[in-house]
């Protein structure tokens, strides 16, 4: 019985508190929005391969806040070198979680490299993430949720989920609005330049 991506995402975000969340384009943006909108969620609608690095820059700017990147396996695979950059930088407050369905869901459910055996948690571990694991069961998901916002980073988890299609939930997508609401909630003021 595989985990379901919306259920897994909602469980992880339930306890987010004041954490800063960045989501990769496509399904993980829809998943995070479906779990509840927040000005401290920055939804990517493009820039494929960049989610983890947006998280790194944010984590270095805000070392006292937990930063959570939620992204898909296809998005992570496009920026695999970013795991090496994060491993070298060693941000203590960054967690990268890949919702791994083994598919490019946006483009017709073609199989990704993880469906052919590539082990993202293994890559992250080899790059120097202190904690790196693959989550397959509800019990493992629960254990991840309990340490996601407290354990020292950089932390990585790949959550294996069923490759079932999910409904598109249209998160806000106006770039300057996403930018300004995030900065206003985090830094005060109107969040503009």
């Amino acid at each position, binding site marked *: 019985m595989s985990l379901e991506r919306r259920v897994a995402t909602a469980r992880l975000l339930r306890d987010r508190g004041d954490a*800063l969340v*960045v989501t990769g384009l496509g399904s993980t943006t829809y998943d995070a929005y479906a779990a509840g909108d927040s000005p401290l969620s*920055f939804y*990517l609608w*493009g*820039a*494929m*391969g*960049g*989610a983890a*690095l*947006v*998280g*790194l*820059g*944010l*984590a*270095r*700017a*805000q070392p006292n806040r937990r930063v959570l990147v939620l992204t898909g396996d296809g998005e992570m695979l496009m*920026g695999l*070198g*970013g795991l*090496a*950059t994060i491993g*070298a*930088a060693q941000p203590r407050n960054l967690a990268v979680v890949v919702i791994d369905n083994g598919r490019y869901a946006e483009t017709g459910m073609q199989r990704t490299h993880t469906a052919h055996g590539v082990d993202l948690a293994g890559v992250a571990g080899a790059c120097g993430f202190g904690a790196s694991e693959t989550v397959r069961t509800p019990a493992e998901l629960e254990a991840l949720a309990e340490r996601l916002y407290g354990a020292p980073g950089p932390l990585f988890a790949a959550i294996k989920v069923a490759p079932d299609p999910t409904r598109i939930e249209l998160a806000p997508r106006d*770039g*300057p609005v*996403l*930018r300004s609401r*995030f*900065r206003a909630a*985090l*830094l005060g003021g109107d969040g503009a*330049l």
Partner: protein
Amino acid sequence: MSDAWQDGVYDALVAAGVRQVAYVPDAGHKRLIERCHGNPALATTVLTTEEEGVALLAGAYLGGDRGVLLAQSSGVGNCINMLSLPVECRIPLLMLVTMRGEWGEFNAWQVAMGQGTRTALEAMGVLVYRVDDADRAAETVRHCAALAFNSGRCVAVLLGQRVIGAKVFRR
């Protein structure tokens, strides 16, 4: 060729309030990179490829930090799609690009991307300024930083090989 102009660039970046520096190394930025690593108030990140820096600096800005990306002209090609993030979100991006593939270049393989650098950046909506005189480097960086951070635009400063010197290949 003297690299003292890089001290002026470093001072301009610090004066502009830059807090994060992301780079793929280039010989033309060598002294600047060393100065950045030597300042504990700067978060300086080495990248595997330049587009990581575009994403990283967007995250830095969301978190309240101004930043700069140091790259070589060959790395500009790696950045193209990632530039859609700061361009679409009106997030400022300051890039300092050392040029290859021009003015005394030995390595023909650098020419295609070097000659295409300005066109590629402008095609993505990046504002491009060029320095061919080392004495103008610091003031150009200072004014391009102001433009980027005051207007939420992506601004690139191209540092020509007349400034950095052509790379010497010895057998």
